[in-house]
């Protein structure tokens, strides 16, 4: 990894530890939610279904099912959390701290938005696999921003903060005079 500029000073951004911790934390958290939603179908009369009632419509016809019982969250939510979990683990564990791909995020948002809107206009267009693909892509795309953000939140007060590649915008915002 090369050098980066933080607050106008050149530093080596070779400390991957916060990104790893943030990635593992978010990956585990979203993975846990995915697991709970599966468990809610396995134990349909438990409190797990009530847990998700505030955040998802829980329409059985629009959810995966297990043993005849629907999951606690719909297909879109399930695969969004799955994408966030897998993406967070991936971005936390990879040592190559690249710039997040904005085009992937915009693409994911567009596909998910069009799929969601078309489902309301003409339900036949709201194809099962498109829902899965769009949500998974969007979840993965969001995770590439969420992991460095969480790393910044968790470790911004530590002394080693100056050595971390948190703020991708710092490079963009530096005064032009530094480029010479």
């Amino acid at each position, binding site marked *: 990894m090369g050098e980066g*500029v933080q*607050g*106008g*000073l*050149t530093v080596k951004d070779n400390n991957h530890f916060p990104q790893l911790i943030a990635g593992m934390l*978010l990956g585990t*958290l*979203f993975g846990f*939610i995915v697991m709970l939603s599966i468990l809610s179908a396995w134990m349909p009369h438990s*409190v797990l279904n*009530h*847990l*998700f*009632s*505030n*955040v*998802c*419509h829980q*329409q*059985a*016809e*629009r959810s995966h099912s297990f043993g005849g019982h629907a999951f606690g*969250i*719909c297909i*879109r*939510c399930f695969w969004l959390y799955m994408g*966030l979990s897998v993406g967070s683990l991936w971005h936390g564990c990879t040592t190559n701290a690249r710039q*997040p791909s*904005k085009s992937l*995020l*915009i693409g994911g*948002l567009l596909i998910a938005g069009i799929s969601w809107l078309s489902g309301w206009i003409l*339900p036949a267009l709201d194809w099962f696999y498109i829902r899965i693909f769009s949500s998974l892509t969007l979840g993965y795309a*969001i*995770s590439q*921003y*969420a992991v*460095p*953000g*969480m*790393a*910044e*939140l968790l470790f*911004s007060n530590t002394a080693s903060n100056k050595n971390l590649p*948190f*703020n*991708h*915008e*710092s490079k*963009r*915002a*530096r*005064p032009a*005079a*530094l480029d*010479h």
Partner: protein
Amino acid sequence: MNQKELDPQHSTIEVEDPDQFKAMMIGASVIFVMAFIPFATLACCLPQVAGALVAVHLFTSQYSLTLSNGKAIKLAILTCLMGAIASWVVAMGLYLGFDYQVGARESEWVSLTLAEKLGGEKAVEQTKLALEQQKADGLSLKNIVIGFVASTVFACLSGLIGGSIGAAVFKRGEAKS
């Protein structure tokens, strides 16, 4: 190290934290209002993500700033917490005081319509049974506590999602250091 890099004139300017409260309040108001639109429950976490995006957009526009991922996520989480907790308290008040559950009738109607279209008569019967079971269960203290915890946790997660998207999409000038 390059001499220019140590020159204070060329360093990124350290500014005091601009006031986030106004943006947070407007974003939280969006979440609060959307929570009481009957069919909004069908949009899952979208109202909360939308509220978080509004807050990040307003804040970055007002101060012509580009927020780092962490700062945008922090602003979005606080916005979602404020909106979600306020709407949860009012919804609970309506339920306990007037036995009115926001969006319940609409949700029931959608469930039965979808069951009829996609599953036929048998699915409708199953859905009716499930809805009756829900009504019979009522609202216990345990459910209230779980509801509050779930609202808080998922508000944080929605804030995380909204803040991440907001940080990527809304760039309005110099990065806030």
